[in-house]
């Protein structure tokens, strides 16, 4: 880079790192740039905010319009090929006539963090020069393996074969070849749990299982006292269907109330504890928020778990012999000594 910048024939040198991410589930290109060089190269017009600094996030005009972004807003972006999350504060907006108008520009530190690209590596270095031949000579003398193309240039491949694959992803985003260090984290996550969504659903399922265990344990304890009642009802002629309906009618309001109370208490307890204490599961922070859809979902899951648990308990009781269920104690073997069993 320093050799290029120092060359007299290079008017503008713009090293760049490209990353793909999403904002509000829409694909967005994040580009790590030197803002001076990049904006000059793109003939960009600053609109709001400042265009530099050690840490920045500049939104193209079209991107800002698309997502309703303004200077000072904070956006959350995920790593391009690495499982990383970052919060970016929009420090300015700009306008260009190129595709960059729909991109988010960030500093190199953030770009490397999001893409996993190591120091001194870039996806591309764009050079504006009035002497393309000097650039070709420089590349040749530098023993660089590059493909050269651009206005006023005959396409050529210096110290390399012509590219076999023209796809953008292969040309600029591949890692492990061409000197860019392979990122173990990116490789592994790509193969395993790439998306934050997978982790989020995983956490939700895990918590759901824990809640189901808890609900079932509490209901089992409570239901244990009513096994004899079930036996008596069966003895006086209650059908299994009637008892299921009865149980459903009894369980539903209580589970609704319990789910509602638990959800509200959990929300307030979480708000009380934050920001000093956060719940982090699988390395991801679980946010505390009260939105209607999530709350309704939690409520319905708890009701479903409660009803399912109640039916499981009732089914177990219906399998007992009526005399056994009417008795105060279930017919169990008296506990024996392990030593006695093993001695025979």
């Amino acid at each position: 880079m320093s050799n290029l910048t120092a060359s007299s024939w290079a008017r503008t040198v713009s090293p760049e790192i490209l990353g793909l991410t999403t904002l509000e589930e829409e694909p967005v290109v994040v580009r790590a740039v030197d803002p001076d060089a990049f904006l000059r190269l793109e003939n960009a017009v600053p609109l709001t905010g400042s265009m530099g600094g050690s840490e920045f996030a500049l939104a193209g005009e079209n991107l800002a319009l698309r997502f309703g972004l303004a200077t000072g807003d904070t956006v959350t972006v995920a790593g391009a090929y690495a499982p990383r999350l970052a919060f970016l504060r929009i420090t300015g907006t700009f306008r260009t006539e190129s595709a960059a108008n729909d991109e988010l520009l960030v500093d190199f530190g953030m770009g490397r963090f999001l893409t996993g690209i190591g120091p001194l590596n870039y996806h591309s270095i764009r050079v504006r020069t009035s002497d393309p031949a000097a650039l070709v000579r420089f590349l040749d003398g530098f023993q660089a393996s590059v493909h050269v193309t651009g206005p006023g240039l005959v396409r050529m491949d210096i110290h390399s074969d012509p590219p076999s694959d023209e796809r953008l992803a292969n040309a600029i985003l591949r890692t492990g070849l061409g000197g860019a260090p392979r990122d173990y984290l990116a490789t592994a996550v790509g193969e395993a749990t790439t998306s934050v969504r997978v982790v989020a659903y995983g956490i939700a399922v895990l918590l759901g299982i824990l809640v189901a265990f808890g609900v079932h344990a509490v209901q089992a304890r409570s239901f244990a006292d009513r096994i004899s009642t079930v036996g008596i009802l069966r003895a006086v002629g209650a059908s299994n269907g009637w008892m299921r309906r009865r149980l459903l009618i009894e369980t539903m309001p209580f589970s609704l109330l319990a789910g509602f109370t638990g959800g509200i208490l959990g929300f307030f307890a979480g708000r009380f504890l934050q920001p000093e204490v956060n719940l982090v599961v699988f390395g991801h922070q679980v946010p505390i928020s009260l939105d209607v859809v999530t709350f309704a979902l939690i409520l319905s899951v708890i009701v479903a778990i409660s009803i399912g648990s109640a039916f499981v308990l009732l089914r177990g009781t219906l399998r007992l012999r009526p005399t056994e269920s009417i008795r105060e104690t279930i017919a169990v073997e008296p506990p024996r000594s392990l030593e006695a069993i093993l001695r025979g």
Partner: protein
Amino acid sequence: MRTDGAVVAALLCIALAARLVPLTFSPLPFSIDGFALARISTDMAAHGVWRIDPADVNSYNQKLPGFSLLWAAAAQVGGISPLLHVQLLLPMITCFTVLPAYLLGARATGRRLGGFAAGLFVALFGSFLLLTSAAAKESIGLLVFPVAVLLFHERKDPRKRALAVLLLLFLPFLHSLTTFLTLGMVAALVVLTQRRALTRGRFSWRAFALDVVTGPALALGAWAYYVSVDLPFLSDILAPEALVLFLAVVVLLTALMAPMVRPVPRRMGRRLVSPATKVILPPVVGFVLLAGNAATNLFVGAGRTESAFFLVVPSIVLFAAFAVGGFQLVRRTVNRTSDLVVAMFVAPVALILFGFFRGLDPGGLLLVYRAFDFLDYALAILIAVAFVAGWRTIGPSRPSRAGLVAGFLVALLATTPMAWNTPAVFGVQNVTTSEEFRALALLGSLGARNMTTDQRLADVARMWFGYSANADLPRKLRDNESLAGADYAVVLERWATVGAQVHPSPNIVLAAGVLAAFLAANRVVYTAGPPGNRILVVQVLT
């Protein structure tokens, strides 16, 4: 009593023989950590003081001086080398792990056969064998902690309680993880005892306070010491987020554990042991995770399950079946060790769950695999119970009984590759050969200021020789990066075949051409070992 002595002596001989096997690979410590401990012991012996130097590469081990202090004293009294003799003498101590296992097994089953089965399991089970063969703090911890837990379990005798307290006070200076888990087990014992007292209406605040003060409350002393010396990794658990998660796991397990003070009622006509049991779920989940980790990195950034590990799996499945059967027998009967088994399970399981939930990264993997072997004594008890039950079930037929013992022994021996062939089973090499050690020693005479090599040799170079060593050579060679800053490199030819170790990440296998080009471009100043497995010291010119 004489029979007991004879059985224990036989178990000791078997355990010692198994733990001396690593000497056939190398006389040097059978773990990288051993070099740090030997260096600290050597310095202690030379200067006559224990010092913590925060700038020292061995400062972490200096903060846990129990092993080094004892080893320095032993080396001075015996006139032996802390480095060269540790791998010979340590197995003579760690083979005594069979003693608590024998006691636990015999106590649980009421038969010597149970003690023998538990002792044999601890003597030969590969994973436990690996840890108790290695020169590491944990290897002594695995000997001390069951004694402390057993003494605390029998704390009605004030002498045993006092001894337990003494050991619990010593443990923080030996190994932080052992301390943490032992205190967890002790806390679980307190919960079970007090829960039982509540059920029987015999709860006493005084007894509870005494239990807490002489048990879990000793964690405060350990915590104060670790904070005062700024022990690394402590913040991993004490950070607010981690602590909340850990407390959640502890609360959950405490709630699940509390009802275990009573045996599970068994309905009339049901068998004591049945394959259709919920207990089978944890091992099944464990095997699924291991298999899943072979296909993809479960712990992102760490290595996968090696294919050779699956050769050991049939034996582990057999022992898991024994353990599941034993657990059902223990839980459905009245016995003297149920509390011990539950307590010895709960603490490691809590840490394993915490390791999983905290983050699927190398740190999580570290917690999970380090905690696993603290389950081995509880497993030994359960396996012993199932073994004795099996022995009784097959009747007096001698061939059948001989078959059972032979099968048990063969299954145990089949797990020993976990200890003796770690590169194939875990993808991690623990052995440092004499040739490698000499190659590293040569660097000193060459006046090397900065050297570079793989993670294993760089650790040895830093920990024992005190070199400024980088472990990034394999990565830089693979990525064709500059080696600026390094004046010498130690290269192993086998990096091109089995790969260079960069634990906990997977090995980096270099293309043979890359290695050849590096050697051609720089000056090879020393070569040792047979072709194909040579060790090369290279002066970096480019």
